[in-house]
C-alpha cells in the first residue's frame, strides 16, 4: 500500500498541493524553483495514477501550467515595453494565486476554531412552529435561492404529462380523510411524503392534499417540521380512540370542498 493515499485525500486541489510541496521542501515562494516543483508535482500525479485515483482535471491543468511556466523561463527574455515589470516573471501569477489561496485557507481554519453555534455554544431552542397552522404568513424565511428552488420544483413537477380530465367519481376527499386517519391509527406520526408515495396520479395527490388541509382545519392532525426543508411529519392532534367516539367524519366536512377546489380544471 502506498503511503501517498492518505496524503492525497488531504489536498483540496492543485494550489493546496503546491503549497504543501513548497512548505515541505522549504522553497521560497517568491522564487519558486520551477524545475524542482514541477518534478515533485508530477511525481505526485504519477503516484495518484498508480493507486488508481482519478486525477481531477484541475490537477492536470496545473501540471500543464507548471510546464508552461518552466518552458517560458528557458526562453531568452524578450523585453516588451508594454509589459509591467512584475509580469516579466512567468511565475508571478502563480505566486499571486498561491499567496491568495493560502490566505483563505488559513482564515477558514481560524473561522472554524471560533465557538460555533450548536457545536460549542447553544441558544435557546424556540418552540417548533406548527406547519400549515398559519399558511399564508408561512414559516420560511426567503431568499433568491428559495425562489429558484421553488421554481425548479414547479418545473420538475410539470415535466410529467398533464392529465386534464379529472375523474371526480373516483376521488372523494372524505374517503381520503378516512384513509389517512386509518393509516395514522396506532402510529405516532407519518411522514408527509409517504402520503404521496406509491405512484399517485396528480389528481389523487390533489385530493390527498385537500384531505390533509381539511384535517388540519378540523384540528384532527398537526404538521411538524424540525428544520427548513426537513421532513414534514403528520401527527394526530387528538388521540385516535377519542376520535372514534365521533361516529363519522363525514358530518363535519364542508360538503363543497371537493367541488370548489376542482373548479380550476
Amino acid at each position, binding site marked *: 500500500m502506498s503511503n501517498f493515499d492518505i496524503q492525497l485525500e488531504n489536498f483540496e486541489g492543485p494550489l493546496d498541493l503546491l503549497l504543501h510541496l513548497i512548505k515541505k521542501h522549504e522553497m521560497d515562494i517568491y522564487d519558486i524553483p520551477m524545475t524542482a516543483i514541477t518534478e515533485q508535482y508530477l511525481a505526485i500525479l504519477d503516484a495518484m495514477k498508480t493507486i488508481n485515483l482519478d486525477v481531477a482535471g484541475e490537477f492536470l491543468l496545473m501540471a500543464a501550467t507548471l510546464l508552461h511556466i518552466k518552458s517560458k523561463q528557458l526562453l531568452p527574455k524578450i523585453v516588451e515595453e508594454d509589459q509591467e515589470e512584475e509580469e516579466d516573471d512567468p511565475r508571478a501569477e502563480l505566486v499571486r494565486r498561491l499567496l491568495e489561496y493560502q490566505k483563505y485557507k488559513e482564515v477558514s481554519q481560524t473561522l472554524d476554531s471560533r465557538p460555533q453555534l450548536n457545536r460549542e455554544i*447553544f*441558544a*435557546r*431552542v424556540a418552540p417548533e412552529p406548527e406547519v400549515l397552522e398559519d*399558511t*399564508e*404568513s*408561512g*414559516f*420560511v*424565511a*426567503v*431568499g*433568491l435561492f*428559495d*425562489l*429558484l*428552488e*421553488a*421554481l*425548479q*420544483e*414547479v*418545473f*420538475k*413537477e*410539470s*415535466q410529467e404529462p*398533464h392529465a386534464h380530465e379529472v375523474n371526480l367519481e373516483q376521488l372523494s376527499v372524505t374517503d381520503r380523510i378516512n384513509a389517512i386517519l386509518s393509516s395514522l391509527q396506532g402510529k405516532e406520526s407519518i411522514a408527509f411524503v409517504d402520503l404521496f408515495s406509491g405512484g399517485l396520479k*396528480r389528481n389523487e395527490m*390533489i385530493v390527498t*392534499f385537500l384531505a390533509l388541509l381539511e384535517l388540519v382545519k378540523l384540528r384532527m392532525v398537526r404538521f411538524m417540521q424540525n428544520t427548513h426543508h426537513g421532513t414534514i411529519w403528520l401527527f394526530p392532534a387528538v388521540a385516535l380512540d377519542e376520535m372514534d367516539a365521533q361516529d363519522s367524519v363525514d358530518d363535519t366536512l364542508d360538503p363543497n370542498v371537493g367541488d370548489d*377546489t376542482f*373548479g*380550476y380544471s
Partner: protein
Amino acid sequence: MIPLIRTLEMTLLDTLELTPLIEALIFAADGPIKAERMAGALEIDQNEIMLAIEALREDYAEQPRGFFLQEVAGGYQLRTRPEYADYLRKLGHSRPFKFSRPALETLAIIAYRQPVTRAEIEYLRGVDSGSVLKTLLEKRLVRILGKKDVPGKPMIYGTTREFLELFGLPDLSSLPTLKEFSELLPGDENEVYTERLPLLVNDDIIEDDN
C-alpha cells in the same frame, strides 16, 4: 445567592459550579428537562442536581429576572414572567416577512413568467392558486398589469418594486437564471429545465410602478 459549598469528595462539581451549568442545560433544552436526564448527562447523583436547582430557584427569587424556573411535566423549564406577556405578543407580531411554500412557488412563477395569467400559474403549479395570489397582491409583491387580449380577457400579473426591494434586486433583469442555478448541481440531470428559462423580461413592466 447562598453559596452551598459541599465538601464531599465524590463529586466533581460542587453546587456553586454546578448551578450555572444546570442553568445552561435547562436553558438550552428544547422542552422541560428532567433532573434524572441531567444527572445522566453529567454522570452525577440526582441529589446534586436537585441542590443546584434549589440554588437556582433561590437566585431567581432574590433578584428580578425576565424568566423563572418552572417545574412542568416532571421536568424543569425556564419561562418568561407572565406579566411580560403583552410585550412578548407584540414582538411576535412584528415578525420578519416569511413565505409559505405555495406563496413562494407562485411568486417564482410570476417573477420569471410575467406577464402571466392566473390560469397559466395554476397550470404550472397544478393547484388552485387564487388565495395565494390574493395574499401576494395584498403584500404588494405582485400587481395586476392589465388584461390579456384573448377571449375572456384574463388579468395578467407581474411583480412590483417591493418585490425587487425584498430580494435586493436592482431590476428584473438581475433575477438569476435557473440555468446557472442548475449548474451548481453535479451531473446534467437538470438540463431539461434550462431551455425553458429565463423568459424574456420586459423592463417596462415595472416602470410605471415607481
